[in-house]
């Protein structure tokens, strides 16, 4: 019934508009005065009437009006213009921006759209917001700025991989990272290095080149990316030249970093006290021989004290090992750009040099980047251009968090061990409890250098005002060289007595072409139609070569050419391709009723012969309620828009050959070639499918001084790609299958307010998002990660699943655990046991925050500006996998955190730290003992800047002089007692491995000063 009445309404409106169409037809194009680009979605109204239209995707419009009529051109964020028609039939208009510039145009896949007309959910962050934030990669700069986007640095190592989750995790086994697209070209964004600590290829991007970042979150926005869109899509658009005189921008910033927090460790006296007690307790329990303290233990202490008994008896040596893991961390960054152009050709060129030292010893990051963006209008119809980015990034890397050689594992060394062995005047070496990571600082190097070329050429041909064709050909060439040398001093760690060298080259070549038509027209003044249809093809080839050599004549020789023995070498390759067709149509009726449909057919080499192509459709609608006549009486209301979308996206981010039954020829033995079965075939393997429903309300009051949006979404993923555990007796461990489903549900809230306007301004931007991830069905599979993470049906992904610590028995100091066995009536047995094998595992925590958000405040008075961004998350837990070593009440000789001094000592003691027992395993089982709340609120970025008044800057021939101070991670509010609540141990990080801490370095607290010069 509804359908019919709508149809009827359409017919009526058609005929009405036909009647009105007696006046002159006026056409024209609306462009931005700023840079000459066309503006789609500009409202064109006949003043004093209800007649109006909008510009199409190319900024063109057509309207009928009498010669006395006045046309009003308006666009959110731009100053409106009124033009009398007179005898003109072509009226071209250039709108100038008010202070919000073009932020109201959002980039969609294969096009742009005005925010007003958008029926999907896209979060936009302008490049200006993240400019000059003192971090190495743009994702870090985005933290806290977009609703529903959770970004986590794994640890405080520079250049390290990141995790980004847009509206939660939608997969258990396939990637949960979004698709990154830079100027239309999908980027290589996943780790390509050989270390288990992921390296971030996106760190090659100089984010001062970025004009805007648009994050496609709902199905309507993302479905145009089909099988690659389930995790959201991040569209990065780089800066374009602007018509006018050539403008130069130079900036320099310098500063330094320190760890956000340090932990407290035992000193020598405390260490000797605790461990002597631990030994005595174990002797008393009959677990160690009676002379173990005075014999084995004291000789061990003396050994650790470089053979000097005084070292531990009188604290002659009392080393603060933690401080040795850190270094002075200065940074400097220089940026230079020029942009300009004439009516036909515009350009933007930029260069950057960043040189930063990390807070951890030997951790460095250098980036040299250059960009040229060129746009040329060959004829009225043909325009073409090129974007090229060259970058070289050199990252001094560290071992993963699980390695003895990673700097922070140094805290395990007993405090009575001196840094320098007085017997040799060298760094303490083989006699230490564990390998001394300082040896790596002095006698090894680990450099990852990437050479990156990201570029594309395009041509756009305008067949008619309503039709154009665009072809883009792009490439992302990523070359990664890892070069490592470990001197003979590190042999305890490498196992190579006379040095070890490693070199690898990875080359990932990514070709993409996008070819599409864009159409846009207005029919009978009230029907606005835009459409996009096209195809895209991507092919990616990757090759990896690596070689390992040992036996070097001396540390002066570090390349493998000097290795007397080549111990390993290999070359390998892999590839994948996607062939896709896409289409999208937007329809607006009377400028108030918005409809959009899109779809993509995706084919991928990654999937089984039986399921090679998939179709991903989406539909959405919007209603601009505030434009209805009945709402015009509410003057305080400037915008009220209701929108809803529904659609299907996919996730194809699995291995390239996961559907095949495979044999591998790497099973040679003692020089005789061999092969082995590697993988069981699954020809039915297909995409994960995510259906997403989104409903949103956008609002604005008081001429936009208060604006915002609220969204609610439900994202259901089915056919989960699961590495299903199969019985190991089959000879295989897992098989990738489409099994099970999960759900993400949540709401997002964005509020922008202009609290004070005038000479002094105060603006606030708040975003909050709550997401609840729930695994609905895994077909009984147990999928584990991290230390105790698990995918459990009915629980959020990566839930901590282990036994529950019940504290300490006040009578005997035993660590206790809840039995938690389910009784026949379904209740849990809450009695306690000291045997961790008796205690049943249960869900003890959730690594996913239930609430994330950010709030940014901006104060400005004349040239003075203060901006601070708080970012935080709430409701997540962190598991410290290092707890069983660091805070183990003297279970082994690792130095302990000072809280272990609160151990149980005598009957009646009430404490959470069990009795100290050397080798006693008293409370060291993985359990909730090492689980803590991970909530935090952090002053992420604070900037105070001063722009010199024009009168002064012009005297020194400058357009603009700005001085600023920025602090990153200045304050952190958390109850987590580890180093830093923003953590996920690098070698465990994954879909399931979430919220783990394992000697993971804290984030850096950075303070910089900088200057921008415009001339």
């Amino acid at each position, binding site marked *: 019934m509804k359908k019919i009445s709508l149809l009827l309404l359409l017919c009526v409106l058609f005929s009405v508009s036909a009647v009105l169409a007696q006046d002159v037809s006026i056409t024209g194009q609306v462009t931005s005065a700023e840079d000459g680009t066309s503006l789609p979605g500009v409202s064109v109204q006949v003043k004093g009437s209800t007649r109006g239209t909008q510009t199409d995707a190319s900024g063109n419009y057509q309207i009928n009006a009498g010669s006395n009529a006045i046309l009003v051109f308006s666009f959110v964020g731009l100053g409106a213009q009124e033009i009398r028609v007179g005898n003109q039939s072509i009226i071209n208009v250039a709108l100038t921006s008010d202070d919000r510039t073009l932020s109201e145009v959002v980039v969609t896949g294969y096009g742009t759209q005005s925010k007003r007309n958008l029926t999907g959910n896209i979060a936009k962050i302008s490049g200006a917001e993240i400019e000059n934030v003192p971090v190495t990669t743009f994702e870090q700069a985005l933290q806290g700025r977009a609703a529903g986007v959770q970004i986590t640095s794994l640890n405080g190592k520079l250049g390290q991989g990141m995790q980004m989750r847009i509206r939660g995790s939608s997969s258990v086994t396939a990637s949960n990272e979004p698709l990154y697209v830079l100027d239309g070209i999908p980027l290589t964004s996943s780790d390509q290095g050989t270390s288990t600590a992921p390296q971030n290829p996106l760190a090659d991007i100089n984010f001062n080149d970025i004009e805007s970042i648009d994050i496609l979150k709902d199905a309507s926005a993302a479905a145009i990316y089909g099988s690659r869109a389930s995790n959201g899509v991040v569209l990065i658009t780089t800066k374009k030249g602007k018509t006018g005189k050539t403008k130069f921008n130079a900036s320099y910033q310098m500063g330094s970093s320190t760890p956000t927090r340090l932990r407290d460790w035992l000193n020598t006296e405390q260490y000797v006290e605790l461990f002597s007690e631990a030994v005595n307790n174990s002797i008393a329990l009959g677990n160690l021989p009676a002379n173990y303290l005075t014999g084995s233990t004291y000789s061990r202490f003396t*050994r650790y004290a470089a053979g000097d008994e005084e070292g531990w008896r009188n604290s002659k040596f009392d080393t603060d090992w933690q401080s040795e893991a850190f270094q002075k961390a200065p940074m400097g960054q220089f940026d230079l750009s020029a942009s300009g152009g004439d009516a036909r050709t515009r350009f933007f060129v930029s260069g950057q040099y960043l040189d930063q030292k990390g807070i951890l010893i030997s951790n460095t990051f250098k980036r040299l980047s250059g960009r040229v963006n060129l746009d040329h209008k060959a004829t009225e119809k043909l325009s073409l251009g090129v974007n090229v980015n060259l970058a070289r990034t050199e990252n001094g890397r560290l071992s993963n968090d699980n390695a003895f050689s990673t700097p922070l594992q140094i805290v395990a060394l007993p405090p009575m061990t001196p840094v320098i062995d007085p017997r040799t005047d060298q760094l303490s070496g083989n006699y230490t409890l564990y390998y001394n990571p300082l040896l790596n600082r002095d006698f090894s190097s680990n450099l990852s250098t990437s050479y990156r070329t990201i570029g594309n050429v395009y041509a756009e041909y305008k067949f008619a005002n309503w039709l154009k064709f665009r072809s883009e050909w792009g490439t992302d060439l990523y070359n990664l060289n890892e070069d490592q040398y470990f001197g003979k001093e590190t042999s305890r760690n490498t196992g190579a007595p006379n040095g070890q060298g490693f070199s690898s080259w990875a080359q990932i070549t990514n070709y993409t072409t996008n*070819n599409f038509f864009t159409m846009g027209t207005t029919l009978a003044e009230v029907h606005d139609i835009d459409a996009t249809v096209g195809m895209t093809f991507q092919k990616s080839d990757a090759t990896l070569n690596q070689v390992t050599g040992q036996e070097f004549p001396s540390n002066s020789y570090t390349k493998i050419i000097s290795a007397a023995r080549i*111990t390993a070498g290999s070359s*390998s390759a892999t590839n994948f391709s996607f062939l896709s067709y896409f289409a999208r149509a937007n329809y607006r009726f009377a400028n108030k009723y918005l409809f959009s449909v899109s779809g993509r057919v995706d084919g991928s080499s990654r999937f089984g012969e039986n399921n090679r192509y998939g179709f991903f459709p989406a539909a959405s609608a919007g209603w601009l309620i505030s434009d209805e006549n009945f709402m015009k009486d509410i003057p305080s209301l400037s915008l009220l828009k209701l929108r809803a979308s529904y659609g299907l996206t996919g996730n194809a981010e699995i291995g390239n050959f996961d559907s095949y039954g495979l044999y591998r020829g790497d099973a040679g033995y*003692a020089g005789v070639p061999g092969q082995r079965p590697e993988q069981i075939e699954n020809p039915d393997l297909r995409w994960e499918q995510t259906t997403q429903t989104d409903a949103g309300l956008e609002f604005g009051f008081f001429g936009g001084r208060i604006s915002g949006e609220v969204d609610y979404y439900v994202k259901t993923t089915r056919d989960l790609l699961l590495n299903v555990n199969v019985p190991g007796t089959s*000879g295989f461990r897992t098989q990738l299958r489409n099994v099970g489903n999960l759900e993400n549900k949540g709401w997002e809230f964005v509020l922008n307010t202009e609290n004070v306007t005038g000479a002094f301004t105060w603006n606030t931007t708040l975003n909050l998002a709550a997401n609840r991830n729930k695994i609905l069905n895994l077909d009984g599979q147990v999928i584990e990660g991290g230390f105790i993470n698990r995918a459990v049906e009915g629980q959020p992904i990566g839930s901590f699943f282990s036994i529950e610590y019940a504290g300490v028995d006040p009578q005997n100091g035993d660590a206790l655990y809840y039995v938690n066995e389910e009784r026949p009536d379904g209740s849990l047995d809450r009695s306690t046991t000291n045997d961790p094998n008796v205690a049943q595992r249960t869900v003890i925590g959730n690594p996913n925050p239930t609430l994330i958000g950010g709030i940014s405040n901006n104060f400005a008075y004349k040239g003075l500006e203060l901006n601070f961004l708080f970012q935080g998350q709430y409701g997540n837990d962190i598991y410290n996998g290092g707890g069983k070593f660091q805070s183990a009440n003297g279970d082994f000789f690792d130095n302990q955190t000072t809280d272990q001094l609160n151990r149980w000592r005598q009957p009646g003691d009430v404490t959470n730290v069990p009795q100290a027992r050397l080798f006693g395993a008293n409370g060291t089982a993985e359990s909730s003992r090492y689980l803590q709340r991970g909530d935090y609120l952090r002053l992420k970025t604070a900037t105070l800047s001063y722009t010199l008044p024009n009168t002064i800057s012009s005297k020194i021939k400058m357009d603009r002089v700005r001085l600023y101070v920025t602090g990153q991670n200045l304050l952190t509010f958390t109850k987590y007692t580890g180093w830093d609540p923003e953590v996920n141990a690098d070698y465990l990080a994954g879909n399931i491995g979430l919220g783990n801490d394992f000697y993971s370095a804290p984030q850096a607290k950075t303070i910089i000063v900088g200057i921008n010069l415009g001339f």
Partner: protein
Amino acid sequence: MKHIVRNKFSLSLIAGMLSLAACTNQLNVEPVNTIDAGAAVATSGDVEALLVGAYDALGTTDVYGGNLQRDAELLGDNGEIFFDGTFVAPDEIFRKSMLVNNSQSSETWLDSYRTINIANNVLANLDVVTSGIRDRVEGEAKFIRGSLFFELVRVYGKAWGDGTPASNPGIPLILTPTTEITEEANVSRNSVAEVYAQAIQDLTDAEAKLPAANGFFATKAAAAGMLSRIYMMQERYADAANAATRVINSGRYSLVAAGDVFDLRVNQNGFNTAEDIFAIQITDQDGVNSLNTFYGAAEFGGRGDILIEDAHLDLYEADDLRGTLFYEGDNGGIYTSKWLNQYGNIKVMRLAEMYLTRAEANFRTNASVGASPAEDINLIRVRAGLAPVSAANLTLAGILSERRLELAFEGHLIHDLKRTKSNVGSLPYNSPKLIFPIPQREMDANANLQQNEGY
């Protein structure tokens, strides 16, 4: 339309686009590093390569690459060594307090069955093997499979002498290759007796079909030697003595000088001595000597995790050359020299064991198959620089002690203790703590498995 037809530029663009669209075959991307399973085993050479793959799997650290042997010593130890390392799994084994999720329990299980599956693939494709070598290939695959059934059943099941082998749960017997995962993959445990019977059958077939000489791969003697171990576990002493005699009488192996038994070089590729019956081959290119990893000091490429305590060192008589097979590491700890060379081979079986086995078996049955117990024992003693012991003074305890000293840290300890029903510290030989748990991941993946007592 006129525009389109007239404009060469746009024509070429569209032509390009259409031609690309036609390139659907661009989606047929072939794997590069791997090959399709269907094409992998077509020729005799393919099956032989697969057989090599089975050795490669057999030699991984979690199987004969060292962890099986390491864990037998850790689990059987009572104060002669000390596990000083940080790895949780071996530490739990050393402390006799394994948790159900002990990762070594899981890895030993998974990698052993992976090896068994490769052997099963070889056995299922014997028809394409050149007839001249078919027996050898079959014998090698059965040697590998039978040996692993035996290793697994003594790790995950009760000892033969503990209760009723016919009803004690052993491990699942898998005799066919896996081509797809179906409900049938959810296998149950066969009884201990069934597993022993299958292992004996595999190894008996292997002994019959293997050649006497086969490079460093399995030989007739290796199969016979493995059988002697099984018979000892079953207290079938006459059979054990006969099997050991077949190895000794093959004439292919000989005892080497005391200083040459173990590879005391450093960082050089391993080799087999005349005494080695079967050894995992390690080179600096391929394979990891996990015994070096755990027993070797840091300066020799190890983790230095297993320290030798005085309680062990005190067992050697003053002149015992084997008592010199120890060194002090840079960190002050005492280590065994047996696994000094990180690229040295891992001796799974050597001739000395056969003499010790035959001596014990003959002694227990009061027989002299091949030689008298004293003759066999004295071969070992004299080589170690010790005085021979007279037949009259020879005791079972003496034979067992000789065996312990000769084969220390080679992976025999817990099995010898179990078959002789000896305590491990305060734990009786049949304590559930001395049996690995069925891995938690396997219990979770297969509902038909029964967990061991105590887990």
